[in-house]
């Protein structure tokens, strides 16, 4: 089991290293980064000066090592627009995104998993059909459209909820629903499939043969077994939520890193963009490591064998 954990951690480190390298290469593949930073009418002299100032005139491998060295000291460079460390800018916005992602995850898991359980165990009932309709809607309506629809209905027409900003708690409701809807559908579908798959297994029939009701079998045995694929999905969905936040935060004027990403791209503040891209990638890697460690708790076959 220790082997397994160590293996997963090594894989994670390799993955993070890969991400760092890819981000670096992409940033430099797109041409001379200096050109991104200067105004269109800048003179060649100004460009050369800025290039030297930012160190872009050095050989690429030196820049790469310098970049990695900087990262070890959590130095992600200074924002060329705001003249403060890029990391500080992202850090100041991060709590908002965490708050929003938590809200969305609550919607996704809190509705998605029970919906999946009901759809799997109460097949062919009215409630299962209604849930299936909701799930298909959540899955097929694009996020930007559902966000605007929510604003139109609950913000503009009914005036129940604020349409933008991150002031009171009520402002979180619509963005959380809009951001969580797609994940909710994914959780519902995966939970449903996992449970139906488990219900067909021999141990369910064996459980009934010893006098358990289907409900007892579901709660004692099936849910735990079905949780394994759902944990995998949960890890991926947390990363997807952060990526989805880019759109939702823009629509709802939510001051998180998604909005910051759009603003930074527009103002060509590429060091800030770089921090955001790295952050989202780290979250992907870390959640999948976390999922691997949760398997250890849930599944004795992993705990005892590997």
């Amino acid at each position, binding site marked *: 089991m220790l082997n397994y954990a160590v293996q997963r951690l090594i894989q994670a480190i390799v993955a993070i290293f890969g991400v760092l390298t890819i981000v670096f290469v992409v940033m430099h593949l797109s041409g001379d980064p200096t050109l991104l930073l200067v105004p269109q009418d800048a003179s060649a002299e100004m460009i050369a000066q800025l290039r030297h100032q930012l160190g872009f005139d050095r050989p690429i491998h030196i820049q790469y090592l310098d970049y990695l060295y900087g990262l070890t000291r959590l130095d992600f460079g200074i924002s060329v627009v705001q003249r403060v460390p890029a990391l500080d800018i992202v850090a100041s916005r991060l709590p908002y995104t965490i708050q929003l992602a938590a809200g969305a995850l609550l919607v996704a898991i809190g509705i998605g998993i029970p919906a999946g359980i009901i759809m799997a165990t109460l097949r062919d009932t009215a409630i299962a059909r209604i849930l299936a309709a909701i799930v298909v809607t959540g899955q097929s309506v694009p996020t930007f459209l559902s966000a605007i629809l929510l604003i139109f209905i609950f913000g503009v027409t009914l005036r129940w909820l604020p349409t933008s900003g991150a002031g009171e708690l009520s402002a979180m409701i619509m963005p959380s629903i809009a951001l969580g809807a797609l994940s909710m559908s994914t959780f519902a579908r995966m939970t449903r499939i996992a449970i139906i798959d488990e219900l067909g297994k021999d*141990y369910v029939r064996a459980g009934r043969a*010893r*006098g358990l009701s289907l409900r007892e079998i579901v709660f004692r045995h099936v849910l735990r077994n079905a949780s394994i694929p759902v944990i995998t999905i949960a890890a991926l969905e947390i990363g997807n939520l952060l990526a989805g936040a880019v759109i939702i935060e823009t629509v709802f004027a939510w001051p998180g890193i998604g909005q910051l990403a759009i603003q930074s791209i527009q103002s060509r503040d590429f060091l800030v963009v770089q921090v955001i891209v790295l952050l989202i990638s780290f979250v992907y890697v870390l959640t999948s490591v976390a999922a691997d460690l949760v398997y250890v708790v849930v599944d004795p076959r992993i705990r005892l064998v590997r």
Partner: protein
Amino acid sequence: METHPRPLLSVDDLTIEIGGANVVDGISFTVAPGKVMALVGESGCGKSLTSYAMLGLLPPAARRSGGTIHLGDQELTALSERAFRKARGKDISIIFQEPSASLDPLTTVGAQIAAAYRTHHKVSRAEAYAKARQMLEDVGIPDPDRRLHQYPFELSGGMCQRIMISIALICSPRVLVADEPTTALDVTIQAQILDLMKKLVTERDTAIVIITHDMGVVADIADDVAVMYAGRIAEIAPVHALFEKPRHPYTALLLASVPKLSDAPKADLATIEGRVPTPNEFNAGCRFADRCPLATERCRAEQPPLFDCGGGHRSACWHIDRMAEIHGRAA
């Protein structure tokens, strides 16, 4: 069978239909306490459906359209689902073909055996575990204290089947149904499991209904045999009578197809020509007629009843007398 004590389990004229076709068609048999009845037949003859019906666990597509099943004085087929649940595992238990798959992979075997006991008895967890430990000893699992805390994947197939037997017997049911209990196991383990089952029936006076397609298993464990063909009983008899003087051509051919040590090496395996008819190919008469070397016009037109051949031996064949002649000539 008249020589046996009062029957414990009686299946009477059981009919099960799937999509309008009677895939089990009016079968009847009884089992006395401490006796083993084997239901034998090819895949699809309805033997497994019969066993599921005994536990009220027919798959959703199948429906019992007639007949009754009694356990002692209790009519199982009249029970509601809720009442049946109280009987399952306590009065009548079943073990399945795939022992490893029949256990929850994420729960220790001790917890699963103890839970089976607590389903029907209000006792503390500790008491249930003590009972589970005792049960592991009874089914011959060495080092039970360690095994209790192991997971199914840590045990071999034979071990898992012993666990399943523990679960099935922990509430001391009066009837144990065993659906191909040794098919997934290798031959030496198979013999051990059959020995164990034999020991348990004698000790506890449990009645066993064993479902199998393996004549070797039948010879090893059964007291009585019901040979099923296409949803009907072809022949039912005490095991020795059936093996020595089968009175149904299907049984005779089935026995002839069992390879023997005296066969020439690499000799072709004996087979029965043709295949089992599907439910929509059933004719009005004997369902084996199309494959039967003795078949006549009457066989195809008229369904043979189960004729009494004496000594508890009954055969559903118009030609039981010719079968007797054949045995006479051979002797």
